[in-house]
């Protein structure tokens, strides 16, 4: 009887709230792992900033959930000769203040990026340097982008930065005037409402949006950095959906009657071990603790042994809650340039010991494995587990993990172009991650495997300074080959040569998960971004 009354009450209550929801504005509250640092779309490349900015600002080219380029402010594009791409711009698009969007805004955006954003920690301006992109206005809705040579990945690269309004962003203070709303006038489905750093960002529906009308009237991004706290916020109803639910809780959330749902998609982000290739390494030592007089990491047999010693399946099952895809690749399956021949190394401690013996390190050596402890899913736990596995084959591994800002500042040292004076890298072996953000392999092969060369924009994440002339020539050729059929084998070959040489050791692709109320639906994205239009009522 009691149960029956309760059920009736519940039903009445839910009817009541349903009726209420039809009249009141609908709000979607998103609990995010990382706080937004700026709403200036040219200030950083951080996904936590981009995903909010993408609600307000739009790019010429957007990306579908599988990171393939789709029309946004540009309706179509094609190369008209070896050095020029033509982009047709969307007509009848209005900025949030009612002014029309034209080619002048695109030209202004290029000029703003090229002039450099003073103080920006990670501006997308580097995209313009690749191929020395120059823009030319043809008419109000046509632009030409010229490069020094053929540039096949133009559409993908133009998905890296948003277009800002020339009449609002002229002469404003970078970042500041975007955070207070003065220059935060975009063309996107949502308009800027409020930004309180560390607390929340609020955007409101743009009724004049040119595209599909978004479902939610108001969207609130709330940063909750602790994983367990973020999940608790979902469970007590403070937020409707969270990114990066803690992996130990996934099985429980996935259950039918949990009241929550989990969305899942393979990420474009590979987690890998990277090596430093100097003659001597500060964190490689002999067993007695004295500094090593050679760098064993320069021996491919040692690097292969380190890969074979890693039990990727154990990491998936014991640490990632089953949510990872062990890999021997750096470009995710399904992306243009995926090298399907590359398989994850099968775990074999015996093989690893044999290889170390062949390389003359049968007694092993000592190393320190560095890495971040709050950047990637379960990063510290993975690092500790790898330390176990390496120690077991004779490579005595110490672990040093640190918060992401400290780690990346130290690991990126060695790039005198971006950080003057920091021309010596700090670590010898470390764990890092790389997302194929452009959706195709040029971006990743150039960033991770090509030799470091800031002028050419290559090797920008090759922090260990790996060099392989064959990889370089194949990758450089791919970068100027317009014909996809000819470009594909070049990329695949470059990847295969680099990874068979163990330039770096891939562990797994992350799996992106979101947890949300069971009354909602969510369409997951490979690039980890959370968009309000991906969330719908069931």
């Amino acid at each position, binding site marked *: 009887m009691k149960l029956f009354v309760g059920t009736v009450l519940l039903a009445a209550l839910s009817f009541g709230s349903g009726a209420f929801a039809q009249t009141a504005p609908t709000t979607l509250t998103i609990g995010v792992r990382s706080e937004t640092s700026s709403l200036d779309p040219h200030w950083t490349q951080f996904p936590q900033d981009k995903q909010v900015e993408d609600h307000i600002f739009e790019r010429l080219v957007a990306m579908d959930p599988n990171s393939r380029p789709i029309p946004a402010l540009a309706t179509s594009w094609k190369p008209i000769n070896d050095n020029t791409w033509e982009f047709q711009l969307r007509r009848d698009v209005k900025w949030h203040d009612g002014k029309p969007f034209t080619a002048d805004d695109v030209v202004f955006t290029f000029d703003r990026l090229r002039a450099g954003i003073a103080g920006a920690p990670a501006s997308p301006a580097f995209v313009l340097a690749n191929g020395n992109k120059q823009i030319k206005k043809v008419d109000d809705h046509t632009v030409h982008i010229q490069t020094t040579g053929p540039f096949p990945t133009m559409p993908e690269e133009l998905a890296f930065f948003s277009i800002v309004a020339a009449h609002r962003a002229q002469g404003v203070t970078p970042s500041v005037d975007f955070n207070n709303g003065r220059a935060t006038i975009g063309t996107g489905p949502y308009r800027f409402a409020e930004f309180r750093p560390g607390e929340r960002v609020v955007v409101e529906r743009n009724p004049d949006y040119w595209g599909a009308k978004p479902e939610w009237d108001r969207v609130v991004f709330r940063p909750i950095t*602790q994983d367990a706290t973020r999940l608790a916020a979902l469970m007590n109803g403070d937020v409707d959906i969270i990114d990066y639910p803690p992996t130990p809780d996934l099985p429980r959330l996935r259950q039918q009657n949990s009241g929550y749902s989990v969305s899942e998609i393979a990420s474009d982000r590979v987690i890998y071990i990277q090596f430093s290739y100097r003659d001597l390494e500060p964190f490689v030592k002999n067993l007695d603790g004295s500094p090593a007089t050679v760098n064993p990491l320069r021996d491919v047999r040692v690097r292969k042994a380190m890969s074979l010693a890693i039990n990727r399946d154990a990491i998936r099952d014991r*640490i990632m809650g089953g949510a990872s895809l062990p890999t021997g690749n750096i470009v995710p399956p399904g992306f243009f340039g995926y090298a399907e021949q590359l398989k994850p190394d099968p775990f074999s401690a015996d093989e690893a010991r044999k290889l170390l013996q062949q390389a003359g390190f049968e007694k092993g050596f000592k190393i320190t494995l560095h890495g971040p402890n709050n950047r990637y899913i379960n990063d510290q736990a993975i690092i*500790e587990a790898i330390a176990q596995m390496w*120690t077991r084959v004779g490579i005595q591994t110490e672990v*040093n993990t640190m*918060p992401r800002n400290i780690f990346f500042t130290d690991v990126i040292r060695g790039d005198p172009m971006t950080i003057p004076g920091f021309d010596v890298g700090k670590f010898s072996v470390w764990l890092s991650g790389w997302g194929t953000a452009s959706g195709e392999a040029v971006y990743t092969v150039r960033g991770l495997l090509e030799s470091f060369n800031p002028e050419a924009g290559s090797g920008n994440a090759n922090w260990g300074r790996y060099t392989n002339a064959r990889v370089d020539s194949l990758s450089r050729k791919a970068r100027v080959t317009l014909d996809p059929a000819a470009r594909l084998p070049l990329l695949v070959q470059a990847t295969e040569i680099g990874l068979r040489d163990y330039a770096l050791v891939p562990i797994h692709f992350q799996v992106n998960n979101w947890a949300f109320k069971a009354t909602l639906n969510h369409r997951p994205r490979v690039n980890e971004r959370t968009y309000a239009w991906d969330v719908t009522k069931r």
Partner: protein
Amino acid sequence: MSAAAGTSVDIEERPFRQFVRDFTRSPGAVVALVVLTGVLAAAALAPVLSPQNPYDLTQIDILDNLQKPGSESMSGMKFLLGSDGQGRDILSAILYGLRTSLIVGAASVFIALAIGVFVGLVSAYRGGWVDTVIMRIVDLQLSLPPILIALVLLVLLGGGVDKIILALVIVQWSFFARTVRGLALVENNREYMDAARGLRLGGLRVLFSHLLPNCLPTLIVIATVQVASAISLEATLSFLGLGLPPTEPSLGLLIANGFRYMMSGNYWVSVFPGIALLVTIMSINVLGDRLRDVLNPRMAR
């Protein structure tokens, strides 16, 4: 009245026995002492008592991770309190973690005390501009939260037990210096100090054989309580992911690592180290409180 007089006679004749008698009058303090002795013994004997060396990476296996209390590892070892996310035996990790926490706490307090006492005594004894300069430095440091200073130091210095001790010494010395100076200023005006000065004894001798011993009771109390706060500060730093390497977890790091498993029901990873930390800090604090009551003559009456 006569009882009080008798007590004061006793203090002069058999100070230690009187101290013990006063101390044991509080059952709570006795329990705390017993518990703390147990904790210290367990920490000292960790290599003997632990079923596993949790810092030896060849002895732990990821395939043994998150086992419930009482279950067995693949090699047949019993996880009395369960295992953590890396397959470490929680009991062994607590015993070894206690060692780290106690060593870090005691060593940092001892060094900070030594520095603070010296600086504080000199400051009080010399007075003038020396006093002014030292105390302004102390003021400056005390105006900043210790956790903030420690965080910045660890970011600059990097991790490791030695670095953590150094950071804790730097945040604590000023506290001791300020206290010692205050005590010494009071003592400085007593008759025995006039007498010492009248005998034309050297500065150092007056400082250390006359001034210091009379400040000692209060210092012992403060140092004891400060050990507890140093341990919890170290736990906080480890919880924030700075300081000790994750493969050699202190109690704070164990708690932090277990925190992420709390919601999914693997309570033991966090709860047992948490209890160990709580018991240690509480027993030190109770002990410190009792020492204050006993050693402070004003409180005794």
